[in-house]
């Protein structure tokens, strides 16, 4: 009965979404304020019903209601509680419901916190978001109903894919979707601006905190995914250029261009067309990613069970939203004022370069991801494009980005001064050289690429510090403002990330060994003693577990006891390698059990894989700093102050919510 209630509440949410797509928009053209004001209660109602559906599906998982087909396919009576909850988004249908929930949260947040926007503009933004919600709800109800019943009811479920039974996977999809779906907000703002005919000059400023927040979530989601792949796939890599990773990476790259482009457009009112196009593209790439993951057109680790009707549906959605938006762009963009007055050594030029490079990187990833499909369509045979293509080209495109990154923020708007810029560059280069020497002595990377990477990282980190120092010297109260600090933090994070990547790629040590209980081996600076091997019963699996005692060479003090496992899951009988990882600021130790090598005495002799991964945490640490920097900037008072100021001018008697804007 509860499952049916879930379905009904999805239908009700759809009805509200359909009203939201039509009524406020109609009101914005006919001038009917009552209709325009409907957008807020409709948003809240939609959020309420989708939340209800989500809670009902979750409760079906918690109470193990295997009469619901989706639960029976993705859960099992032995599944521990935390994975019963994350199993809600472990399959196609449930993850789509999560997607809708996240979208409803964004829509309600826009309705709640944008009271300072002109009513007509807000009505159009809400209507576009309502259309997106309606499309996804239709998609769920017609092709991917998570509430379908299974008769007769099976005695037990098929179990959640063991790869997904992991703490990282509990939060990875929600974060990623917050980012993915959040790109719908700048998209809706861009469409509303285009519908307005003349460029609503305010839209860019209103849009910035939303875009930064969505982009921050996307950063978090991608970093979590990479972290998960690192420890769960048991392969020791952290990025695979898998089609699905690319699907989330493309909106991130365009989002990166967009947050920078918004800065120029807000400050100098230039590149308006370009900013609009980026906002449209970012969301279109989110939809494209959805298509690639769920249609079965490409194969990947993450691919959901594919279904051609779903593919057609998403393609139609992509055609409607991206096609419609781009057509609108073609019709309306010429009404915007042309760009004027950009000097060669100006911040505008720097940000334009950023945009061009990130757009090119996106194009490169898009081409590499779709090339197998293209080759197939043109009968060139199936081809898989691998890491060599992506890795090489991506580094080539990112070299100018990292070299210019410290220079951009210290360049003046409009007409920069070459002499001044050169002065900055020289000072930063000197400081960076000092730091680089220090870092190289400390970290001692192996190989030319490691050296270059560390030097670049020093340049990036010094650039951020230098910028903050410059800002605090020139600001009145001697402290940089919050958004300036956020930007510097994010750019510093890129430096930290580069340290991690360069060290791991250049200096990791890996050994494959045959080890018997009692053996001790030395890998890097550590001795690994294979102390014991035993069988362990987990909640829904049986595991062989090795016990490794790790000491620094020549030292008796125990650094870590590592417990790698080889698990066999009860339902389905899949075998998973659970690597043991001893994390550290400057290195991770990584031990994984391979196969038992002695048939007569299987517990005693194993093939064992041992890694030392220097500075691998810095990869995710850098991403964390980028994310914090973005959130810090997004929460800067300048956006809220401006909103309150404009609210005072624009608020009409019929808009009662202006009081919220400053809160």
């Amino acid at each position: 009965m509860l499952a049916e209630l879930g379905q009904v509440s999805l239908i009700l949410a759809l009805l509200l979404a359909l009203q939201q797509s039509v009524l406020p928009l109609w009101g914005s053209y006919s001038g009917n304020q009552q209709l325009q004001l409907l957008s807020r209660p409709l948003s809240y109602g939609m959020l309420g019903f989708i939340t209800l559906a989500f809670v009902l599906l979750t409760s079906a998982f918690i109470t193990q209601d295997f009469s619901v087909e989706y639960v029976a396919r993705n859960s099992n009576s032995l599944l521990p509680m935390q994975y019963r909850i994350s199993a809600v988004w472990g399959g196609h249908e449930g993850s789509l419901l999560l997607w809708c929930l996240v979208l409803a949260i964004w829509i309600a947040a826009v309705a709640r916190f944008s009271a300072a926007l002109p009513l007509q503009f807000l009505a159009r933004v809400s209507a576009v978001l309502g259309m997106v919600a309606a499309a996804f709800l239709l998609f769920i109800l017609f092709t991917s109903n998570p509430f379908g019943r299974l008769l007769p009811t099976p005695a037990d479920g098929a179990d959640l894919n063991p790869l997904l039974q992991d703490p990282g996977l509990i939060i990875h999809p929600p974060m990623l979707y917050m980012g993915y779906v959040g790109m719908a907000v700048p998209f809706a703002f861009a469409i509303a601006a285009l519908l307005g005919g003349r460029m609503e000059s305010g839209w860019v400023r209103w849009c910035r905190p939303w875009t930064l927040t969505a982009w921050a979530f996307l950063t978090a989601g991608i970093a979590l995914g990479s972290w998960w792949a690192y420890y769960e796939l048991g392969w020791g890599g952290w990025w695979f250029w898998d089609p699905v990773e690319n699907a989330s990476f493309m909106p991130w790259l365009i989002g990166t261009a967009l947050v920078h482009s918004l800065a120029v457009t807000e400050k100098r009112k230039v590149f308006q067309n370009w900013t609009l196009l980026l906002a449209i593209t970012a969301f279109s790439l989110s939809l494209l990613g959805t298509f690639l993951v769920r249609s079965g057109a490409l194969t990947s680790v993450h691919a959901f069970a594919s279904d051609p009707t779903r593919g057609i549906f998403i393609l139609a959605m992509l055609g409607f939203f991206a096609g419609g938006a781009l057509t609108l762009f073609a019709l309306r963009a010429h009404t915007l004022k042309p760009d004027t007055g950009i000097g060669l050594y100006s911040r505008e030029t720097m940000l334009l370069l950023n945009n061009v490079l990130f757009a090119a990187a996106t194009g490169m990833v898009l081409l590499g991801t779709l090339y197998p499909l293209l080759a197939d369509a043109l009968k060139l045979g199936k081809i898989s494009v691998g890491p060599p293509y992506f890795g090489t080209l991506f580094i080539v495109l990112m070299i100018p980005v990292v070299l210019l990154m410290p220079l951009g923020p210290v360049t003046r708007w409009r007409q920069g001064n070459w002499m001044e810029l050169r002065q900055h560059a020289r000072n930063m280069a000197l400081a960076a050289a000092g730091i680089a020497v220090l870092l190289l002595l400390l970290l001692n990377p192996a190989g030319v690429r490691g050296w270059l990477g560390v030097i670049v990282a020093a340049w990036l980190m010094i650039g951020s510090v230098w910028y903050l120092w410059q800002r605090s010297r020139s600001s009145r109260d001697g402290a940089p403002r919050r958004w300036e600090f956020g930007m510097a933090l994010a750019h510093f994070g890129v430096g930290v990330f580069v340290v991690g990547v360069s060290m791991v790629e250049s200096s990791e040590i890996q050994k494959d060994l045959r080890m018997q209980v009692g053996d001790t081996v030395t890998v890097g600076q550590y001795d690994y003693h294979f102390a014991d091997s035993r069988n362990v019963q987990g909640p829904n699996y049986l595991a062989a577990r090795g016990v490794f005692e790790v000491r620094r060479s020549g030292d008796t003090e125990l650094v870590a006891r590592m417990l790698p496992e080889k698990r066999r899951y009860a339902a389905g009988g899949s075998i998973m390698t659970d690597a043991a990882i001893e994390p550290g600021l400057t290195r991770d130790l990584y031990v994984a059990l391979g196969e038992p090598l002695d048939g007569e005495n299987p517990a005693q002799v194993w093939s064992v894989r041992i890694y030392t991964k220097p500075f691998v945490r810095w990869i995710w640490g850098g991403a964390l700093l980028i994310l914090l920097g973005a959130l810090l900037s997004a929460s800067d008072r300048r956006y809220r102050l401006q909103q309150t100021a404009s609210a005072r001018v624009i608020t009409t008697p019929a808009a009662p919510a202006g009081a919220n804007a400053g809160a």
Partner: protein
Amino acid sequence: MLNRILPVAVFMALCVLLFVGLRMADQKDIIPSPLIGKPAPEFALSTLDGDQLIRRDDLLGQPYLLNVWASWCPGCRVEHEQITAIAESGLLPVIGLNYKDAEDDARRWLNQFGNPYQQILVDADGKVGIDFGVYGAPETFLVDADGIIRFKQVGILDQRTWETSLRPLIQSLPGDES
């Protein structure tokens, strides 16, 4: 003008491509490979461990599963458990075709995840893969005792495909004639 129309035009082209891709994704399941019902192409490949040379005709006499894999292929990692389960079921031997891979990487991969294969043939340049019409790893072929290809799976071989199509097909084969 052109500037503004270009994005739509590029997007249209993209949509056409995606649509074609989708059609092909459907057909992968519907239209059987032209090789089905035909003899497996001839090959003579060395094995991964040791210098043994294995020819197509050496494998005649009993049905076997030919699994195309590589260490660089994430999908192979996913289906590995299923392939291991099939090998352990003892129903038929699983032969690995290590496709366009570096031998050291392949060995490391097997060490890490386990080796379900009775034999592993090394197809370093992918030429035999071309003869088999391999799109990309992973792919799995069922070859019967007479050397005729009876089934082909493009992409990950999951438990459902195994239970619903492949295993019944194997059990219906005349089986071991040697």
